[in-house]
């Protein structure tokens, strides 16, 4: 081989590897771009959701709309008669908050105690079994809860109403909604509380035990208050689920026309059941007003989040 030939093949190899390197680089860049794009798409969704739902929901209040709804009447109204063109959302908001609040009131203590049981008290086997129970409850789809509620919970409610000499509409009532929601948010709060209690540093417990507190005292006073932040995060998630739960609730709510409902054996109407009722038409006020209800729902969830966060901060600073 002459030196000339050697040089030639060397440059050839160099050129090829340079070409390959630039190809790799461009593949690298394109893929990086695609990855970043996917990340951005995922992040943009929430903004798009808020924007599109709000745009459609505000539309019915604007003067250009055919049969516009008055915003004031919508926000303060205590009647919802879509057949008469009366749309008042205030009583629905109150109903939604009451049902979610009472569901939380039932589920929260049960959840926290169960979580404590799973992490600290139960022996390993039982703890695993209980974890599975919670996971199964979380995995059951909402329609199945709906079938259970409209078959079993309504029967129970009817019986309870009988004790108080009330008649219900086949058991469909606010109490049924509350019980159903309590069951549905229980696994959400419990699993968050379990994570929070697991994360409590052992030194806190040991400290408490060393000071002479009993095991149970330590669990209830030290462990729970250390895990408070996570437990409240669970409560937020749970209430969010209670506000947003649609199919199961609408199977037992009964959709009252006026409200707010104070008697637990009366029919009720929540924001989600309103959105799901009478889905036959696809144009007009009746259809578009669902989006306005959707905005109200999102605002309520947001306010609840902020309120509970504020409460948590206050409790933490109070310690």
């Amino acid at each position, binding site marked *: 081989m002459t030196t000339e030939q050697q040089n030639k093949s060397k440059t050839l190899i160099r050129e090829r590897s340079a070409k390959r390197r630039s190809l790799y680089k461009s593949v*690298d860049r394109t893929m990086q771009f695609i990855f970043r794009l996917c990340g951005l798409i995922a992040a943009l969704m929430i903004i798009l959701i808020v924007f599109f739902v709000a745009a459609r929901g505000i539309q019915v209040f604007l003067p250009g709309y055919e049969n516009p709804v008055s915003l004031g009447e919508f926000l303060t109204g205590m009647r919802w008669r879509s057949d008469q063109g009366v749309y008042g959302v205030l009583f629905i908001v109150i109903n939604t908050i009451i049902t979610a609040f009472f569901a939380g009131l039932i589920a929260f203590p049960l959840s926290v105690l169960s979580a404590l049981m799973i992490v600290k008290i139960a022996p390993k086997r039982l703890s695993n079994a209980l974890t599975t129970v919670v996971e199964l409850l979380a*995995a059951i789809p909402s329609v199945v809860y709906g079938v259970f509620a409209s078959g079993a919970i309504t029967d129970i409610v009817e019986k309870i109403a009988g004790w108080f000499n009330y008649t219900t509409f086949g058991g469909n009532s606010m109490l049924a909604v509350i019980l159903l929601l309590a069951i549905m948010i229980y696994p959400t709060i419990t699993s968050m509380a379990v994570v929070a209690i697991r994360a409590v540093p052992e030194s806190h417990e040991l400290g408490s035990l060393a000071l002479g507190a009993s095991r149970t005292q330590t669990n209830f006073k030290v462990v729970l208050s250390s895990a408070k932040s996570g437990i409240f995060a669970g409560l937020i998630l749970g209430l969010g689920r209670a506000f947003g739960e649609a199919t199961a609730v609408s199977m037992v709510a009964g959709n009252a026309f006026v409200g707010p409902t104070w008697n637990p054996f009366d029919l009720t109407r929540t924001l*989600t059941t309103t959105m799901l009722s009478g889905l036959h038409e696809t144009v007009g006020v009746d259809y578009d007003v669902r989006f306005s209800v959707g905005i109200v729902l999102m605002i309520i969830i947001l306010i609840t989040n902020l309120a509970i966060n504020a409460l948590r901060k206050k409790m933490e600073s109070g310690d």
Partner: protein
Amino acid sequence: MNRIRIIKDRIAEGFTWLSSGISALVLIAIFVFIFKRGWSTLNWDLLKNNYNSENLMAGYDHIDWDEHGAFTAPDTLPEDAFFSEKYGVAFVDSINAAKESQMEVVFLDPESPLQDGKITTAGPRQGEKFGMEEGLFLKKISYINLEGEKKSAGLTATQGKTSEELVSVLDNDSQEVVDFYAQTEGGGLKGSIITTLLLIGLTLIIALPIGVFAAIYLHELAPKNKLTAWIRSSIELLSGVPSVIFGLMGMTMLFQVTRLMGITGQSTMLGALTLAVILLPVIIRQTEEALINVPDGYRMASLSMGATQFQTIYKIIIPNAMPGILSATLLSISRIIGESAALIFTMGTAIMDNPAWNSRGTSLAVHIWTVMSGEQPNFELASAISIVILIIVLILNVSVKYITYRMTRDKDDQKKNNKKAKATAET
């Protein structure tokens, strides 16, 4: 510790036992209720039948009737069935849920000439092959009698209103069958099952790449800055949005996307797109979890061997994160099967027997909603479908648990091995 303290502790502990007990009881109550109500309704016919029953008329004008001889009844025939020896067919009288009497075809000899009919009802299926078959509900049969006149018999005719009469008329008075009019059995889940499968396929095709890529971006590529933090918190927020809101979003925003594909109304595609958005946070979280479990050493080794970043991701990281991606897929499937509210908005509530990606349809969950929200809620059917859904969802969740268990166990094993290796190296 004094006695009061002990009693107080016991009571407090008792409450934890009580609350866990209540949760277990509720779970058992749900399962017992659903299985008790639905088990007797659940069978294979339910799974493979159409929902809407069809009225069809089939004719036999192209058959040479002389060819066929006498048939013998099989031993397996139920006692209340009546068998026609001339045509090899057996009927049973029954009363349906609407208290109407009906005549079911319970047996048809495979050689019977009655199976070679053609549809004569006007419509798109006219001329299609359709004969007598088991499971059909016969209304009327027209035949040529021994005198050569055309007569009819059956439930809607003047004679042959019971199986016994009909069979005797057919065997003793007919030369050949002209046509028959029958109703197919309805109330089945076939269409909804197909729609559900279609929905799972479409949703995963859309959601998996975006979700996995987004997770890879967040964990492998993203710089630690405000933008990344914002992306993370946005995705976190997305998981807190209720599914009705996703349904609304599907109706306004994604509807425009499906309109570009030439779909004018609610469709399975629209449902799949909406579900894809719902699943993004789930897939991203699960995949990231798996990426965290891939040891950093793998990445460094691959990069130091001269592999590019994409090669490292494609050849090292994704294969190692596969169990996590798999469990994300299984969790997604279980969410798709259970989702109802968003699909009611985007796919409609009309149960279809011949679903397509660009037409309306119901998944199994929405099927439950439809039969429950009618004038007469059908608990038995709803519970039967619930059993199907529960079994699938439980299997999926157990698989996810197993995969996660394997993943963490592998990681623990690795740690142990590392420790051992270190220990031996030191000695």
